[in-house]
């Protein structure tokens, strides 16, 4: 029981863990920033994949749309970083308003593949169609346009790290709230038995659309955070090959859970970082690791942590009981 009560502090623990590791490995700060942003991106995918059972090969499209929304704002319209992020959220809402109705009527692999084609169309759009404003493959640079922000100048990487910690904390609590509220159960229920949900009087299509919207907005926020972090964007952010990475990260973390995305981002990026510092060919090792996770720990890293946690808790309880018994004797 105690262990469950501690769960509410989960997001705080994650943030504290990140802050400690930031000071333990000061030269890895960009890596921790990236993990945090990637967590938000994986969260978006997890809503579709874990809660709704929709596999999307197009998450990088939404990521790059968010990134380009923020980038274009910063490059041409103004210098306020927060407005740029808000702009990215608006773009996300607009995207899901336009695409949602037709996409959420598709099923299974069709949804997957339509999203994949969105990815390709996105790259095409930012690389060729809008080349006049996006500079195509050369990328768009706007760091000098970014204005100083009050209290904390987030243009500096060390300050940006704190800002990201704040955003991640908020995102985790919102996510947790969503999972614990009726919405989480409704999403999962309409995945496992949509017909029954209809009989219960739910509009399953609208539920799916809502989930899609949340997912898109999370992705565009992650995109805008990337854009501000790097100070430049290029079309490769939305490439198809990245779609698989986010799926892998979601699975590695443990799908359909609140903290899975964080551990997925940590596990996947960590693995990639670690492997590529030893070997130039990370695909081989990452492939094997993913197979191991899929077959041996099918609840992902978070599931593994939960299991070991409860195992240790049970052990300690047993130990306590025994020590009480011996004391009584």
């Amino acid at each position: 029981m105690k262990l469950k009560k501690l769960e509410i502090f989960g997001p705080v623990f994650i943030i504290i863990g990140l802050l400690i590791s930031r000071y333990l490995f000061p030269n890895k700060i960009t890596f921790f920033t990236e993990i945090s942003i990637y967590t938000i991106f994986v969260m978006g995918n997890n809503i579709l994949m874990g809660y709704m059972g929709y596999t999307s090969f197009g998450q990088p499209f939404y990521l790059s749309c968010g990134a380009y929304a923020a980038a274009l704002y910063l490059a041409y319209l103004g210098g306020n970083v927060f407005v740029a992020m808000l702009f990215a959220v608006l773009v996300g809402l607009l995207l899901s308003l336009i695409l949602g109705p037709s996409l959420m009527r598709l099923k299974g692999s069709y949804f997957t593949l339509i999203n994949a084609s969105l990815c390709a169309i996105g790259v095409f759009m930012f690389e060729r169609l809008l080349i006049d404003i996006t500079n195509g493959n050369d990328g768009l640079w706007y760091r000098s346009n970014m204005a100083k922000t009050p209290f904390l100048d987030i243009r500096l990487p060390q300050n940006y790290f704190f800002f990201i910690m704040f955003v991640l904390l908020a995102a985790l609590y919102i996510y947790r709230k969503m999972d614990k509220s009726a919405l989480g159960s409704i999403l999962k229920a309409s995945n496992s038995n949509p017909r029954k949900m209809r009989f219960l009087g739910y509009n399953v299509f609208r539920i799916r659309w809502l989930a899609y919207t949340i997912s898109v907005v999370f992705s565009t926020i992650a995109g805008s955070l990337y854009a501000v972090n790097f100070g430049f964007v290029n079309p490769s952010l939305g490439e198809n090959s990245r779609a698989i990475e986010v799926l892998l990260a979601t699975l590695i973390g443990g799908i359909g859970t609140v903290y899975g995305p964080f551990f997925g981002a940590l596990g996947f990026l960590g693995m990639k970082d670690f492997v590529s510092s030893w070997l130039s060919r990370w695909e081989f090792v990452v492939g094997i690791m993913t197979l191991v996770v899929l077959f041996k720990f099918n609840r992902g890293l978070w599931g593994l942590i939960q299991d070991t946690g409860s195992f240790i808790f049970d052990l300690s309880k047993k130990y306590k009981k025994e020590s009480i018994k011996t004391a009584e004797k």
Partner: protein
Amino acid sequence: METWFTAIIYGLSTSGILFLISLALSIGYGLMRIVNMEAMLYYSFGAYITYTIVTLTGSFLLGAVGAALIGGLLGFIVETTLLRKVYHRNMMFTMVVTFSVFMIGIGVIQFIYGLDPKPVASPISTIVRLMNIQIPLYRLIIIVIAAAAYLFIQILMNKTITGKALRAGIENRENVEGLGVNINRIFTTTFVIASAFAGLGGALNAPLVMVGPYMGFDMLLFAFITVILGGLGSIKGTMVASLVLGQVINVGGTIWAPLAFVGPFIVMFITILIKPTGLYGVKGTAFGFND
């Protein structure tokens, strides 16, 4: 006028290669209802084996045979050790599992051959004149081979008793087994044939592109589009879709170069929104989902 005609012939040869490669995906779905992304490995390995054999012996024909054999062998190993264990799992799971296998395969290729792209010389440099238009004979040979492969598969599926057992097995696996048919062996045989075609596709495509570790990755989405556009599980659909896409890539690319890459995606996007089951797909459950 001549440019268009050339584009159409080139388009047909692209279709041929697309068809050979997509067959493994199409049959993998048709037989086991799984999306076997690792099918692109047979294609890449086929191309690399062709490169090795051509470098060693100078014979492209031997290379193509070797490619088909290695494709079939890999298909056999993957089907018997992995796919059979996961075919009843949900779509997402099998997709990620087969993709992991694909990544491992890319790692193996990088380990053996390194990262640099390898060139394979075109085996036939003869140019044929067709109605005053110059066409490389090699392109025409690809078209003929792909057409023969299509006929072979259609006869195998519809005319032979093995094909009938296969179709019955897709309809109801247990009942066929109950009659005493070793359905696993038939499934494996069919899958191996499809994998061998993918390997052959790799061999045929090797002189046209650079042979590199990520060539399967580049082809994956196009093969996917072919299968989805044609309708899942329909071999005829796969054939028609590859014909359409070959023209979109080549004729479209002649009109405006970027269309060669983005055209197939746009065609699929529109088709799926209008007819979600693809051109020849049967109405019913899309895989993994009951709703």
